[in-house]
């Protein structure tokens, strides 16, 4: 989604302003907003891609005017109501008006460390061979999905070079919509600063992690016309590097 979260290359925000001896949290409500967001995620009713998608669904004016934990809090409210865990009337009144969704039990304190340590690995087996190899020239798709995606606008329809192949990973674009993990090969693609930004950028190269369906063979111009050609035997580009 071409939302306000996709900030790369925007101008006018002013200098980065590091804070000396910055505390982890700046207010008690930030501590609580952080913790209730993570703990609510433990209930298992959404995945990390859905959580990111919820935060990105804030309108651009609201997103840009909100602090980080305000965005988290608003995203959490949207997830809780979308899943029916909390009613909109309950959010409005702050009162318990409905029974909880069945089948959810809170993760107790003594299990927090274990759940955090397990994390959420995204590596998965992919049956088909990787289409691209390290060193290959690839072009990113000119993709503007209305849903969640992890291909930033600045890196769309650009030619770069594959510099790493990481194995199969959960595909966020489908996972965010509840359409399954649909794992794909994940690559790191290096773009020159000049390719992305022209002559004046001070970036020598920018590296973006790209799922396979974001990419096409840069030396096969017909692919731009015909779109993706998934699974074609003759497109095999070798196994994992």
């Amino acid at each position, binding site marked *: 989604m071409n939302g306000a979260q996709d900030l790369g290359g925007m101008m006018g925000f002013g*200098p980065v302003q*590091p804070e000396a001896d910055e505390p982890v949290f700046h207010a008690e409500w930030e501590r*609580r907003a952080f913790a209730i967001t993570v703990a609510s995620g433990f209930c298992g009713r959404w995945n990390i891609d859905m959580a990111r998608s919820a935060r990105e669904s804030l309108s651009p004016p609201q997103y840009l005017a909100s602090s980080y934990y305000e965005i988290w809090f608003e995203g959490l409210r949207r997830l809780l109501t979308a899943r029916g865990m909390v009613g909109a009337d309950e959010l409005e009144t702050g009162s318990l008006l409905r029974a909880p969704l069945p089948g*959810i039990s809170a993760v107790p304190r003594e299990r927090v460390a274990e759940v*955090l340590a397990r994390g959420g690995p995204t590596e998965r087996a992919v049956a088909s061979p990787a289409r691209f190899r390290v060193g290959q020239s690839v072009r990113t798709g000119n993709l503007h999905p209305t849903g969640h995606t992890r*291909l930033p606008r600045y890196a769309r329809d650009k030619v770069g070079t594959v510099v790493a192949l990481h194995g199969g990973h959960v595909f966020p674009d489908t996972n965010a919509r509840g359409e399954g993990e649909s794992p794909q090969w994940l690559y790191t693609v290096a773009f020159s600063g000049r390719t992305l930004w022209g002559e004046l950028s001070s970036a020598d*190269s920018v590296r973006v992690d790209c799922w396979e369906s974001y990419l096409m063979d840069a030396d096969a111009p017909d692919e731009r016309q015909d779109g993706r050609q998934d699974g074609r035997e003759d497109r095999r580009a070798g196994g994992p590097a």
Partner: protein
Amino acid sequence: MADNAPHSHPNALSDMDVRVRALETLLVQKGYIDPAALDELIDTYEHRVGPHNGARVVARAWSDPAYKEWLLRDATAAVGEPGGFGFVGRQGEHLIALENTPKVHNLVVCTLCSCYPWPVLGLPPVWYKSAPYRSKAVIDPRGVLADFGVSLPAHTEVRVWDSTAELRYLVLPMRPGGTDGFSEAQLAALVTRDAMIGTGIVTLPQSAGANA
């Protein structure tokens, strides 16, 4: 605190205080979350997991060539396995270490959100999550470095890594000169969070007692 600072009345509950407390209460009443688990989460990331973890990893890589080779080859294992440090889990499931050299300087950003290697660096600072950094890092990384007071030679390649997937990047900064014979603990004390993101470089204080 300045008179016009937004939090100059610590006894008055802000709108966000009220709203977050109300939602927390509701979620506890529903049985979805355990209040004690919230305290544990906060304590974990406020007091236990932080850049001191990453600093130990960097110090060992500077001290032990075999460990450095392991870290650069498989950072997830070198950081997470018992033979490494046991720093594992959420937002560090797939770690990659990037070595800074005189030729290449690596800088890590997440333009789309706030992806950050929690097990080694803790929760990200505000500037890392903010629009100025996320917008500027990919188009003008040297300008970002200047915001941090860092200037690199013109011949150093600046490589920016946008954390768009679940790979989490840790920068292995250059070891400063004059640290021969330093213990791992002494080295770790020099390593800053910013140096492990790529917005800083590790320097040796002029001398003991020079606090400026």
